[in-house]
């Protein structure tokens, strides 16, 4: 009874609390990282006043948003207006329940037996993440609609079209990985890469490209940041949101970036594995804990995200659809055929 209590209640709760805390902190600092990285690309310094070198800036931002006046437009659909930020934030956080960022560990011998640090490993984890992240789009649509603002409405509609059409090539790109890994479990995908002596980005370079482009579009980031295109739609779907509700939208965007980057790391770059995990003379790299390897790879993706934001103009709505349907879907299908044939050839 006692052991069961620990195993099923205490440990998961602790894990959830720790992961939730870490993810929220990381997300908060992602905003700081974005501002810094953009600033550095734009020959300026970025926030550097709050705390040493500006490191307390996210905290100050959070505090500001927390104490800010929380406006609800008079003609807004109140219930939906309140619900929308939650509807986008919760799915984004839920996705982290299945993301394995490190293998089972004894935590430097502190624990009697090795336990996996992630919340859970389910055998349909990928499907779960895809499904959960699709719910996020409702938050945007409902938020845009319930604000009773024309700009918000247009932002919401844009994002609906965008997210629906980019989920298709994303799914196809993921199927290419599934063919190679032969599992939907994220842990198994990482293990498959270890077993194959090869990270999947080598055979799946096209899939990686498609997946990442779709990921950028799914998270409404530049150059696909149409739903909140500030120069056209003021602020898109969250024009009318302020205070903590706005913060939810804002943080959800970064959380989704983190999810997409984590998935890309797991599916194409061997998750927590060190480079060349099976080459013996590189075993000194094993000194670095796996979670650090994972973080470094995710950080790389995040940097690319921000690099894109700092460089590219924005697509137009119809062009975005064209890129999705005319290029990415045929390409991802072609990729599926190629990878499938390859898998058949290699594995027989």
């Amino acid at each position, binding site marked *: 009874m006692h052991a069961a209590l620990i195993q099923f209640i205490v440990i998961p709760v602790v894990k959830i609390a720790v992961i939730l805390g870490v993810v929220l902190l990381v997300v908060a600092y992602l905003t700081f990282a974005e501002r810094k990285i953009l600033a550095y690309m*734009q020959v300026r310094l970025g926030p550097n006043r709050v705390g040493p070198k500006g490191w307390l800036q996210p905290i100050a931002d959070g505090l500001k948003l927390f104490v800010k006046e929380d406006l609800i437009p008079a003609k807004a659909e109140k219930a939906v207006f309140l619900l929308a930020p939650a509807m986008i934030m919760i799915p984004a956080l839920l996705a982290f329940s299945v993301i394995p960022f490190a293998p089972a560990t004894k935590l430097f011998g502190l624990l009697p037996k090795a336990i996996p640090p992630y919340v859970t490993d389910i055998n349909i984890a990928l499907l779960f993440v895809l499904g959960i992240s699709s719910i996020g789009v409702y938050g945007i649509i409902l938020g845009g609609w319930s604000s009773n603002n024309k700009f918000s409405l247009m932002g919401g509609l844009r994002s609906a079209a965008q997210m629906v059409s980019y989920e298709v090539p994303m799914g196809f790109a993921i199927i290419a990985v599934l063919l190679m890994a032969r599992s939907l479990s994220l842990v198994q995908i990482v293990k498959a890469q270890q077993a194959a002596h090869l990270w999947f980005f080598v055979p799946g370079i096209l899939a990686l490209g498609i997946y990442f482009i779709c990921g950028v579009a799914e998270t409404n980031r530049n150059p696909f940041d149409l739903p909140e295109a500030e120069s056209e739609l003021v602020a898109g779907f969250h024009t009318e949101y302020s205070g903590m509700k706005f913060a939810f939208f804002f943080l959800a965007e970064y959380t989704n970036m983190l999810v997409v980057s984590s998935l890309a790391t797991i599916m194409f770059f061997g998750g927590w594995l060190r480079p060349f995990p099976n080459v013996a003379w590189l075993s000194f790299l094993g000194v670095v804990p796996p979670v650090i390897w994972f973080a470094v790879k995710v950080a790389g993706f995040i940097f690319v995200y921000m690099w894109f934001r700092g460089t590219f103009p924005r697509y137009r709505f119809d062009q975005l659809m064209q890129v999705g349907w005319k290029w990415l879907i045929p390409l991802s299908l072609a990729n599926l055929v190629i990878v499938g044939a390859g898998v058949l050839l290699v594995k027989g």
Partner: protein
Amino acid sequence: MGGPLEPLFDVEEMELSFGPQHPSTHGVLRVMLKLDGEKIMDAKPIIGYLHRGTEKLFETEPFPQCIPHTDRLDYVASATNNQGFVVTMEKLLGITIPPRAAYIRMILAELGRISSHLVWLATHAIDLGAITPFFYNFREREEILDLFEAYCGARLTLNTMRIGGVPFELPDGWVDRCSDFIDRFPAHVDEYEQLLTENRIWKRRTVGVGVISAEEAIEMGLTGPPLRGSGVKWDIRKVFPYDHYDEIDFEIPVGTNGDTYDRYLVRLQEMRQSARIVRQCLDKLPDGPVIAKVPKVLRAPEGMVYASVEAPKGELGYFIVTTPKGTKPYRCHVRPPSFINLQALPEMVQGLLVADLVAVIGTLDIVLGEIDR
């Protein structure tokens, strides 16, 4: 299968008030849009939010004191505004200015043109979602403003030309500073081009957007880069050379398709040409006084006179009517290029998407201070 299908629901166009407080209306322009989805069925610009009655003010000021007010028309390129007014006044009074003054004026005006085009590129790019060129452009603009500050003491509203010449001699070391900047500048333009010119997203956003043919452009009275982008090789500096532009060798870049992309290319080329003009002016800079001998109190003959300069936005003209022995303009009308260019907006955005509207507003390069006066 006869006739169009009856819609199941009532269909109505969405009316969207775009501006005057909107990030990409470049000030306080307001456009009333009729939208079908995101498609623009009708656009109606509403202006006047920045109206200050400058033309009325001119009537109350003696001629030399009108010059600071011209700064505030097109406030991102105030040197050409000053130039337009003083050139008109010199035509009215029959003043010939010393060559050194003319060359200094040309240098200032071309630097102003570069800085105006830099602001245009910065805002145009940010309208289309590219945020980084903004900072690169403003970095170069800052150097130009520093040059202005070293010359006349002001950075934006320069008030740097006088009837009969320019008020100041160039300060020590200014020529070297300026030529150093001008030598470095084309490399910076290359950088902007690397970021945007071949970029497929940029091209898709601009090629074929806001097309206006040469005939239509003339009919609508467009001037400046919007007219040249449609392929009309027309530039006041060449057609009616004022100051000493006839002694300078430069080219008028023109586009072919009259779309947003061509206007973008035209303006980038104009920046390079302006740098070339400044380079030549600095090399040829003659010695001598910087201001002609003009009477302390200017008394104009009776008449009406119009003169124009090629402002960064197009033909900037001043129409001055005087009474006999008048010391003030009886009437001073400004022909603001932005005002007349903006008139073409509804035709250019017809049937495009909302996202294209910001591209077209950006490509017209309007300044509301000049439109509303």
